[in-house]
C-alpha cells in the first residue's frame, strides 16, 4: 500500500532584541529566575504594553526576505487562557491580521538515504506573526510545589507558519534548516536551538495518493534537526501502522521522547480550547508606512539566493561552490573579503575556502567565525599566488605556518606579529618562486644540452618525456621555478 506524507511547520523564532517585546526588561538568556521580570513581565495591576520597534523591524526583515506581503496595518490580539507561566492570563499575539503575509522559501533537499539526488523545492509560507513568549514552569525543584520563572515571559517571537508543502522528513528538515540559516543570515534571531531560540512544531498527517488530507497530529517543541527527522519518521510510521491496523488518527498534540525515539500524546484529544481572541485595546493597530518598509529594506543584506546566482553568473563559480560559500553569512563575508584581494581569481578563492581552509577548520572542530587566519591574510597569500610569487605547494606551506603560529600565538599570547605577515613567511622560508625568465631559460638550456637523447626522443613525438624535463628543471631550481613559466620555456626550447 502506498502512502503520502503531508507536513507543515510552525516555527517560533526568538527575535534578537535586547529587550522584551512589550517592556524594557532584558532578554538575556540564563539569568537567575525572575531577575528579568519587570512590572510588565509579572503583569502587576495597572501596567501597560509598549511595542518594541526592534521586534517589528525584524519581522519586516523576515517578510522581505521571503518575498512576503507586509501588512500596512496589522493588529495585536489577546489569546486568553489560564496558566501559571502566563502572567496576564492572556498572550499578546496576532490573530486574523498578522504583520507578514504569504511568502515562499526555496530549499535544497538532501535525501536522507539511498543514492537519490538532491533537489530544489519551493515551500510556501502562510504567514508570520509577532507574539510574546510565556514564562517557564519549573517542576521538581522543591517538594510539592511548582515554581514559575518569568524571565522569558514577554520575549519577542516571530511565529512562522508554512503551508503543508513538505512530503518527507528530509524536506521538513531541509525547510527548517533553510529557515534557520535565513533568520541568522538576516540577523533577526541567534538561532540557538539549545536555548530555545528556534523551536519547531511539526504537523504530520498521512493519506493515500489522491485522497483528501488526513487528520494531523502536531509534534511540539522540537529543538534539533536530528530529533525532528527521528520524530517525523516515527510518527509517519505510527500513523500508517495505526490506519493499516484498522485504527483512526485523532487530532492531538504530541511530544517526541528523544531517549526512546517515540512520540506520545500530550493531550489525548484536542481539547476544545476557546481562546476568545479579540483586539488588544492597550495597543494601537501596527501601521507600517512605505517609508518604514524602505528603511528596513535598506538594512537587508544580499540574500543567499541572490548571492548564489551572482557567484555563478558573475564570478563563474559552480552552483555547488556557490551554495557552500553561501551556507552562512559569515562564510560569504569571508569569501568576499578574500576575493577583494584577488578580484579576478574567484575560482581560486573558492577552491581555497572549500578545500584547505574548510579541511583545517574541520580538523580543529571550528566554524568559519573561529578561523585563525583572517580573510585579509588569506587574500594576501592568494595575491602572491596570482602574481607568481608563490607556487601552490608553497602557498600550502605558508597557510600551515600561518595557522600554527597564530594558534601558538593565541594560546601563548606572545607579542610580535610582524613575522606573521604572508610576505615575511615567504621570505623566511625561502618560498619565493623563480619567475625571472632569464634564470629559467638558463636552467632549461643546461638541461637540454645535458640530455640530448631525451631531447631527440621528445622531438620524434614521444611527448611523455616532457615530464622528465619538468622534473629536472624543478630539481635544478630547488622547486622554486614558476611552473607555468617553466612549461612555456621548456616547450619553446624543446620545439627547437
Amino acid at each position, binding site marked *: 500500500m502506498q502512502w503520502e506524507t503531508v507536513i507543515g511547520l510552525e516555527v517560533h523564532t526568538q527575535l534578537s532584541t535586547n529587550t522584551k517585546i512589550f517592556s524594557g526588561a532584558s532578554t538575556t538568556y540564563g539569568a537567575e529566575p525572575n531577575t528579568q521580570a519587570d512590572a510588565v513581565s509579572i*503583569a502587576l*495591576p*495597572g501596567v501597560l504594553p509598549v511595542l518594541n520597534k526592534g521586534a517589528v523591524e525584524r519581522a519586516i526583515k523576515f517578510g522581505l526576505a521571503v518575498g512576503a506581503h507586509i501588512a500596512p496595518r496589522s493588529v495585536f490580539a489577546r489569546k486568553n487562557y*489560564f496558566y*501559571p507561566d502566563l502572567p496576564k492570563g492572556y498572550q499578546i499575539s496576532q490573530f486574523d491580521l498578522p504583520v507578514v503575509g504569504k511568502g515562499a522559501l526555496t530549499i535544497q533537499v538532501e535525501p536522507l538515504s539511498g543514492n537519490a539526488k538532491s533537489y530544489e523545492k519551493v515551500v510556501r509560507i502562510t504567514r508570520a506573526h509577532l507574539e510574546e513568549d510565556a514564562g517557564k514552569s519549573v517542576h521538581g525543584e522543591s517538594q510539592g510545589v*511548582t515554581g514559575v520563572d518569568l524571565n522569558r515571559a514577554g520575549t519577542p517571537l516571530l511565529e512562522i507558519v508554512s503551508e503543508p508543502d513538505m512530503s518527507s522528513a528530509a524536506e521538513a528538515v531541509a525547510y527548517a534548516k533553510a529557515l534557520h540559516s535565513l533568520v541568522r543570515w538576516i540577523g533577526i534571531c541567534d538561532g540557538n536551538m539549545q536555548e530555545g531560540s528556534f523551536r519547531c512544531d511539526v504537523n504530520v498527517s498521512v493519506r493515500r495518493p489522491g485522497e483528501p488530507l488526513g487528520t494531523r497530529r502536531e509534534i511540539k517543541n522540537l529543538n534539533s534537526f536530528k530529533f525532528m527527522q527521528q520524530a517525523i519518521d516515527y510518527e509517519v510510521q505510527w500513523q500508517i501502522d495505526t490506519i493499516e491496523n484498522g485504527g483512526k488518527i485523532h487530532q492531538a498534540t504530541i511530544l517526541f521522547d528523544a531517549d526512546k525515539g517515540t512520540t506520545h500524546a500530550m493531550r489525548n484529544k484536542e481539547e476544545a480550547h*476557546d481562546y*476568545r481572541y*479579540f483586539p488588544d485595546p492597550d495597543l494601537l493597530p501596527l501601521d507600517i508606512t512605505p517609508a518604514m518598509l524602505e528603511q528596513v529594506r535598506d538594512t537587508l543584506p544580499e540574500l543567499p539566493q541572490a548571492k548564489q546566482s551572482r557567484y555563478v553568473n558573475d564570478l563563474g563559480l559552480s552552483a555547488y561552490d556557490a551554495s557552500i560559500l553561501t551556507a552562512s553569512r559569515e562564510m560569504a563575508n569571508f569569501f568576499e573579503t578574500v576575493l577583494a584581494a584577488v578580484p579576478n581569481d574567484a575560482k581560486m578563492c573558492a577552491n581555497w575556502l572549500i578545500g584547505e581552509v574548510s579541511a583545517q577548520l574541520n580538523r580543529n572542530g571550528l566554524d568559519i567565525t573561529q578561523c585563525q587566519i583572517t580573510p585579509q591574510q588569506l587574500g594576501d597569500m592568494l595575491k602572491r599566488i596570482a602574481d607568481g610569487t608563490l607556487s601552490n605547494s608553497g602557498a600550502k606551506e605558508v597557510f600551515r605556518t600561518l595557522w600554527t603560529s597564530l594558534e601558538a600565538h593565541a594560546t601563548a599570547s606572545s607579542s610580535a606579529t610582524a613575522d606573521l605577515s604572508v610576505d615575511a613567511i615567504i621570505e623566511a622560508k625561502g618560498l619565493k618562486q623563480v619567475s625571472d625568465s632569464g634564470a629559467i631559460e638558463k636552467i632549461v638550456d643546461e638541461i637540454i644540452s645535458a640530455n640530448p637523447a631525451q631531447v631527440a626522443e621528445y622531438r620524434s613525438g614521444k611527448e611523455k618525456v616532457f615530464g622528465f624535463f619538468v622534473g629536472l628543471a624543478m630539481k635544478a631550481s630547488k622547486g622554486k621555478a614558476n611552473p607555468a613559466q617553466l612549461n612555456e620555456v621548456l616547450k619553446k626550447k624543446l620545439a627547437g
Partner: protein
Amino acid sequence: MLNSSLQQLGSALRAKKISSVELTQLYLDRIASLNPALNAYITTNASTSLAQARAADALLAGSKAQPLTGIPIAQKDIFCAKGWRTTCGSKMLENFIAPYDAHVIAQFNNAGAVNLGKTNMDEFAMGSSNETSYFGAVKNPWDRNAVPGGSSGGAACAVAARLCAAATGTDTGGSIRQPAALCGISGIKPTYGTVSRYGMIAFASSLDQAGPMARSAEDLALLLNVMTGFDARDSTSLPRDKEDYARDLNKPLAGLRIGLPKEFFAEGLAQDVAGCVNAAIAEYIKLGASIVDISLPNSKLAVPVYYVLAPAEASSNLSRYDGVRYGYRAPEYSDLTEMYEKSRAQGFGAEVKRRIMIGTYVLSHGYYDAYYLQAQKIRRLIAQDFDYAFKQCDVIMGPTSPSTAFNLGEKGDDPVQMYLSDIYTIAVNLAGLPGMSIPAGFGSNGRPVGLQIIGDYFAEAKMLNVAHKYQLATDWHTRQPNGI
C-alpha cells in the same frame, strides 16, 4: 479654608498664611472624625501624607512651588501609588502594596501635591452606587441614606464633605460624572488618551479615562494641567503639546451654540432633574448662548453596547488576578484548577463576577460576531452621531443622570436599573469624547442634580470656560451638605 479654591489655597500656602502640614493635618483630622460614617476613604496614611506635606513646605519656602504644591489631594484607590495599599475596592487586592507610581500619581508628586489617601470605589470600578466595594458602601454626604454614585463614589463624597481639597477619579461609563452629579460637585472626564492610563488599574481599557473631581470648574482646570500630558508608557496616550486648561475660563459665552439632544430629555428622565437642567439652560441663554435641537439617534444603544464591550475587555483584564503572583489566594485547594477557581470565586464580588461571565460569553466562539463585533460597529455609529452633532453646535448639554441619588440598597437587586443610571454618560466614553458634570440645583428630595456638558475632542478648555461662566453666575457649586 475648606471652601477656598485651589488657587486661593495655593496663594495662602505660598504666602505662608498656612503650611502644607497644617492644611494636611486639618484634612486628616476631618477624615478621622467624618470618615467612619461616610466611608469615603479606604486607606489613609497620616505619616506618609505629612512627610509629603513637609517636603512641600520646603519647596514653598524656596521658590520652587508650583500651583498645586502643598495641596492635599485624595486619590482614587484605582491608581497604584508606591508604598500605598492599592485595593481597587476588591478583596482580591486587599493586601496589595503597589511597588510603583501610576503616571497620575507621579504627576501630582512632581507638582508637589500631597497624597491624602486612597478613596473608596466600586470593586474594579464596576458599579454606579459604590455599593460593590469590598470595603463597604460610601454614604452620600447630602443624605446618608443615599448612594454617592459610582464608581468614583469615595472621591465625590470626599470632595463634597470637604475631606480633601480635590480628588481624582476615573470614568469608564460615567464613573466621574455620575457621582459628581449625585454629590453636587464638578468633575470632568477628558478626551480618551489625554491622561495616561499607566498604573491605573484597568477595567475596560478602550473606555477608561482618568480625570479630576473638585468643587469648581476653575479647580478642575488646575488639576487637569497636572494630570494630562503624553506618556510613552501608555500606547493610547496622545502625543499632544501641553496646554493650559485655564486659559479660556473667562471668555464670554456670547454666540455659544448649545446642542440639546432630544434623546436626553425623553422618557425615563425624572421631572425634578429635567427642571434643574432646563433652568440651567435658561441661565445660559441669559449668558448669550443659543439653543440648537439635535439628535443622537444611536445613543439609545449605548447602554447595551457598553455592556458588551466593557465586560469583554474586563473579562480579559481581570485574568491576571489568579492567585499565582500577588493578590488573594484561597487558603485551601487541591490542584491548580481549584486554586484558580477558589481564589477568583472568593476574591471577586458578585458584580465583578457577573461582568466577567458576560464578557467571557460575548467573546466566545460562535458569539463573538453577534455580540462583540456588532457592538464595535454600533460604537462607531454612536461616535458618528456626535461628529454630526458638533457640526451644528459647540457643546452638548443635558442631564448627567436620569434621577438624583437613589437610596442605598434600592437598585442592588436589579443590575439593569443600576446600569440605566449611566444612560446619558456612556455614549461619551464609547465615542472617546470629553464630558463633565457640574452642580445645577437640587431635586425634590433635596439631593443634588448635575448638568452634563459634552464637548468635541480636545474641547476641554472650552467646556471649562462654559462651566466656569455658569458658576460665576450661579452658586449651586458653593452649596455644601449640612452636618459636615
